[in-house]
């Protein structure tokens, strides 16, 4: 590669690291940046580390700026994150019932209620976006969650498609 391409790559990497560091103290879960020739997708994964993907259509060294996924062997599909659609108080079970709606390992159908997001007197059922098995439950009952917070994971049998694949 020419010197300018290499130095551009290094600048980009430093810039991404600085961006990631500045996000660490916040509760921003997803940041997307679109620049000419660059589309950056920074997503806070389920243990709080950020997974960065920068896609440069004309660069051949795309993989050099990709941070590796935190866990799971490349052959296994990523668990599908279920996110809160709004700010609210997370209820793992209905207030009238003792048991939570689902537990880790339970098979769930598409559209099945997994949890409830309480906003005032109203509760929004959080429905399974796909069929599968409940993976990790990442929040506690009564926890205040923000828009986009990952609440739990669904493990499906099919591999997940990358959201920004081109």
């Amino acid at each position, binding site marked *: 590669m020419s010197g300018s391409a290499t130095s551009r790559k290094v600048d980009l990497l430093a810039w991404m690291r600085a961006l990631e560091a500045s996000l660490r103290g916040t509760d921003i879960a997803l940041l997307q940046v679109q620049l000419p020739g660059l589309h950056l997708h920074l997503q806070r994964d389920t243990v709080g580390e950020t997974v960065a993907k920068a896609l440069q259509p004309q660069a051949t060294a795309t993989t050099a700026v990709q941070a590796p996924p935190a866990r799971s062997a490349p052959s296994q599909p990523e668990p599908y994150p279920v996110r809160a659609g709004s700010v609210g108080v997370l209820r793992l079970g209905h207030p*009238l019932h003792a048991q939570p709606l689902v537990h880790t390992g339970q098979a769930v159908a598409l559209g099945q*209620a997994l949890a409830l997001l*309480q906003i*005032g*007197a*109203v*509760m929004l059922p959080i429905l399974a976006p796909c069929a599968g098995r409940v993976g990790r439950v990442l929040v506690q009952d009564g926890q205040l969650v923000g828009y986009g917070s990952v609440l739990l994971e669904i493990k499906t049998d099919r591999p997940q498609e990358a959201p920004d694949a081109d």
Partner: protein
Amino acid sequence: MIEVLRTGALNTIQDLGRHGCLGWGVGTAGAMDDVALAAGNALLGNALDAAALEVQVFPLRLRFLADSDFALTGADAQAQLDGLPLLPWATHSARAGQTLVLGLPQVDALHRSRAYLCLPGGVDVPRVLNSRSTQMRGAFGGLDGRALHAGDKLRPAQAACGATPLALLPPELAMPLRCEGSPAVRVLPAAEYARYTPASHDALWQGEWRITPQSDRYGYRLTGQALQPLAPLEMRSHGIVPGVIQVPPDGQPIVQMRDAQPTGGYPKIGAVIEADLWRLGQIPIGSCIRFIETRWDEALDAHAQVQDWLADVARQLQLQQGRRGCA
């Protein structure tokens, strides 16, 4: 359109009641738990006084003949749609051919015994004397003036399906009322209160009153310490309203409920306030209740509190319904 496959007796179409007709000797009827009925309507975006199905005898089996949304409030009857459990106090969507089963009300701390099934736009039955409530004694209103039978078909006033799934916190959680561990209702002393002995007054406010099996939509017969007048009382029949606590000669009080006769001749020791009738309407037979002495201004405050809760809930639900609709 919904078909009734199997029903117990005494499940009727009700709305918030037939008001303004007591002067003609026509009782109010209406849902025993009017707050649950109104909340179920709010969940679907209906007018709060739209007609619904009051279920007080379980189990109930219904089949949806067309896709439709619906809401279930009141007692948590462990409802299932084609075998899948449904959240209580929530909206759901059914497809044509699916079967809805309401089982037995859960025995939980909230002491509920009646469930409400609301449909989009309300149940489509004719209005009679300004209401869609069933007047059982007069055999009019609701579905042909009678309780539901197997084979009856209920039509929603609007065809609606695919509504935002929404759930509500039941009003008991927002407005709890208990007295020493028992569910309680507030009572105003009535016209003949002063004609009773001090011991009777103590028994009214301090005693536990059990709801006997001789209790239904007409009235609840209670059992407890006998209430005695200072001197024998005989009165001419006079106008009464739901909530009035009458004392027959045996001293065991009767609380008039929604299908009460508009007149009665027994002395009245107290009246359950309108704002607490929904609580009383949910107490199961065999349970005990307490009476809390209250004043007129407190009764008005309680009424305002319930209306405010309903308005607030309807507003919050509309916010979610509108928001999801645009997304």
